[in-house]
């Protein structure tokens, strides 16, 4: 037991592994879309009215919401693993993971507010 220095008894390993991959598949399908949208706006292929028409569509609101959920799960787990690997002091690690979660929650709410706002 002396060699075990991490409190690794959460028993959430398989569940984390599974959710990381499930969210990865959702993101692989959805994440390229907003990037292409930005490229279209950049190139002038879509003007503001066109952009609003796309964003206001129910399908795009639903897809955006799914994207936000998958992104938050995926980014939270990814950054958590990175912090766990590189931040060894538990007194730093736990507050860092917690503040990351709070910041992500804030950005998620802001994002949802933009997507679901009446334009």
């Amino acid at each position, binding site marked *: 037991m002396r060699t075990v220095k991490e409190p690794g008894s959460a028993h959430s390993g398989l569940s984390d592994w599974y959710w990381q991959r499930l969210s*990865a598949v959702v993101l692989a399908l959805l994440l390229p879309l907003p*990037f292409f949208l930005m490229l279209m*706006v*950049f190139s002038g292929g879509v003007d503001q009215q066109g952009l609003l028409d796309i*964003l206001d569509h129910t399908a795009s609101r639903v897809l955006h919401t799914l994207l936000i959920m998958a992104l938050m799960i995926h980014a939270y787990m990814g950054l958590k693993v990175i912090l766990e690997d590189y931040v060894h002091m538990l007194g730093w690690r736990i507050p860092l993971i917690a503040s990351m979660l709070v910041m992500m929650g804030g950005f998620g709410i802001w994002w949802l507010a933009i997507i679901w706002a009446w334009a």
Partner: protein
Amino acid sequence: MLASIAHRASGMALVLFVPLYLWLLHGMTSSPDQYETTLTWLHSLPGKCSLWLAGVALVYHFSNGIRFLLIDAGWGESRDMMRFSALLVLVLAAVAALLFAWLLFL
């Protein structure tokens, strides 16, 4: 090893682009004046570089993520195959980097 670190680095970069994307969305869904301001920023050098970086990070993370999923599914688990697919992903990202540079800067 290198592929894992690059996957983490590109993932971190993509997370940092989320606030930028929200700022862009916010500006573009506001008044027409705000839209113009946002579009002007997007066409400035920092804007173009951000789009380029986001694109390259996305292509790398996307391709390497699919590579990881395939390896998890039991495909290409041998040492040689993993080296080859890691190189393939790097080549894909390099091609994407050139393509985005051509799209954005020319």
